[in-house]
């Protein structure tokens, strides 16, 4: 199986990283019958708590053992306690009490990940970057898509995700603060690409492959102008060689939808919770474009 490993990054918070990962992942599994793994790397554990009921999540990740924290803790302590099969959560439990979406798997996060960043500096590069790839690289091969939900920063955990990814996806809210952040992010990813090049022989170097606009509203000029400024910025960064020519701004833009917000409290992706909502429709079309882009169909 040729898996696509994609890191969802943005060092700005609240741009819809988790919503994008969870809902694209679920739509890939449900409508495209793809085998998908979501890897939660954020100490806020948002994609884990979106897809798991809190009591079940707490029990599952107790002491961080069956979570992504264990991968980093093992690397820091030179141990091998992480067990992929034990940590894996298969499907999403619906109101029936039975798991649906059997092709959607989750490696949950634990809040203990907060401690990782403090300790990880004991390591010298490039070992830091290779932690995730070394622990999960083989497992990734059994999936069509691996979606890495990164924390809103560009510290070591995110760098490890970028290292193991074939491509980066940047969720984006159309406003100026996101625009300025995106320019720095693009430069940082370009720098990492150079830094990682020597350690990735024969593999595709990480690049920004796609941008996804969320929290979009069609009223007035505001968001259209902000998206236009993003496109102008992408063109400028492309000319400077900071951004790859493959980087694409995907359509449609994900509109603000109360049913998506509500679905977090139901611990379900919107395609299961409210399949008729505009949120589910936007994610369905976006996922189609996503597949076309990463499988080279159009």
């Amino acid at each position: 199986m040729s898996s696509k490993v994609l890191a969802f990054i943005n060092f700005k918070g609240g741009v819809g990283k988790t919503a994008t990962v969870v809902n694209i992942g679920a739509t890939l599994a449900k409508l495209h019958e793809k085998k998908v793994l979501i890897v939660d790397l954020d100490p806020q554990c948002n994609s884990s708590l979106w897809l798991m009921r809190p009591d079940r999540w707490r029990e599952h990740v107790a002491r961080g053992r069956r979570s992504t924290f264990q991968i980093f803790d093992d690397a820091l302590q030179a141990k091998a306690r992480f067990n992929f099969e034990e940590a894996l959560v298969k499907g999403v439990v619906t109101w029936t009490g039975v798991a649906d979406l059997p092709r959607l798997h989750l490696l949950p996060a634990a809040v203990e990940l907060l401690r990782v960043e403090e300790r990880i500096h004991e390591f010298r590069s490039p070992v830091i970057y290779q932690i995730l790839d070394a622990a999960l690289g083989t497992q990734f091969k059994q999936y069509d898509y691996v979606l890495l939900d990164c924390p809103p920063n560009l510290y070591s955990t995110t760098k490890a995700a970028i290292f193991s990814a074939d491509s980066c996806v940047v969720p984006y809210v159309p406003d100026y603060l996101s625009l300025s952040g995106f320019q720095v992010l693009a430069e940082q990813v370009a720098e990492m690409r150079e830094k990682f090049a020597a350690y990735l022989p024969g593999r595709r170097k990480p690049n920004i492959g796609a941008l996804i606009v969320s929290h979009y509203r069609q009223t007035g000029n505001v968001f259209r102008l902000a998206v236009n400024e993003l496109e102008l910025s992408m063109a400028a960064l492309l000319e400077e060689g900071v951004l790859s020519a493959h980087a694409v701004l995907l359509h449609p833009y994900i509109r603000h939808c109360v049913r998506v917000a509500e679905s977090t409290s139901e611990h379900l992706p919107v395609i299961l919770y409210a399949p008729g909502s505009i949120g589910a429709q936007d994610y369905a079309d976006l996922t189609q474009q996503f597949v076309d882009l990463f499988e080279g169909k159009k």
Partner: protein
Amino acid sequence: MNYSDLATRLSQLGERLAKQSDKLEGQNLGRSAAKLASQLARFEEQLESHLASRKSGELLLESLLRSPASKRHLTIGLLKRGVREICAKRLKSADLSGAKREFIELIHATRKQDLAVEFLKEAFADAAHVESGGKDKALLQREFVHLGQLLEDDFAVQIAARTITELRRVATVNGIRFTDKTNRQRLTTLIRRYAQRAALNVAAARVPSPN
């Protein structure tokens, strides 16, 4: 619980029952076993029907017709085209829900669920596809930033050289909303304001990289 957990539990129960069956007796246990057997029969029936509809493509067709993509992109025209291409027949219904019912019936009758799934998947994928706008869009965006970098007099000269239609195209491509009643002067003001903002936001206000 997932189906794999259920399978493990049922196998373990089966093994235990087989080993202990000669020791099991009494009315309470018997009633409970009878209840379980009847629930199992119902579950087996549903499982068979689920697997059969999955194999024939019926389940996928049903789930496609209920999908968010269908809600947005399914039209009578598309269903008519589908029936014509797949079954070489014509749809009679004039409303969408009737056409959908007729479509499903015709597909089932001709057992062409697989073709229908392929047809709908492709149609929804095409409908979701958005043209990038091409070189023309890129040129008009570049022009917009250029206009934003000009001093007032140079800007006035550049604007004077363009027709209202050209100005409208620059505005449309660059996200400026206007109406048919928006006159040249107002459109020029809008382009001036937002082109200057874009030039500033994209280039001048660039946050320096930490390195």
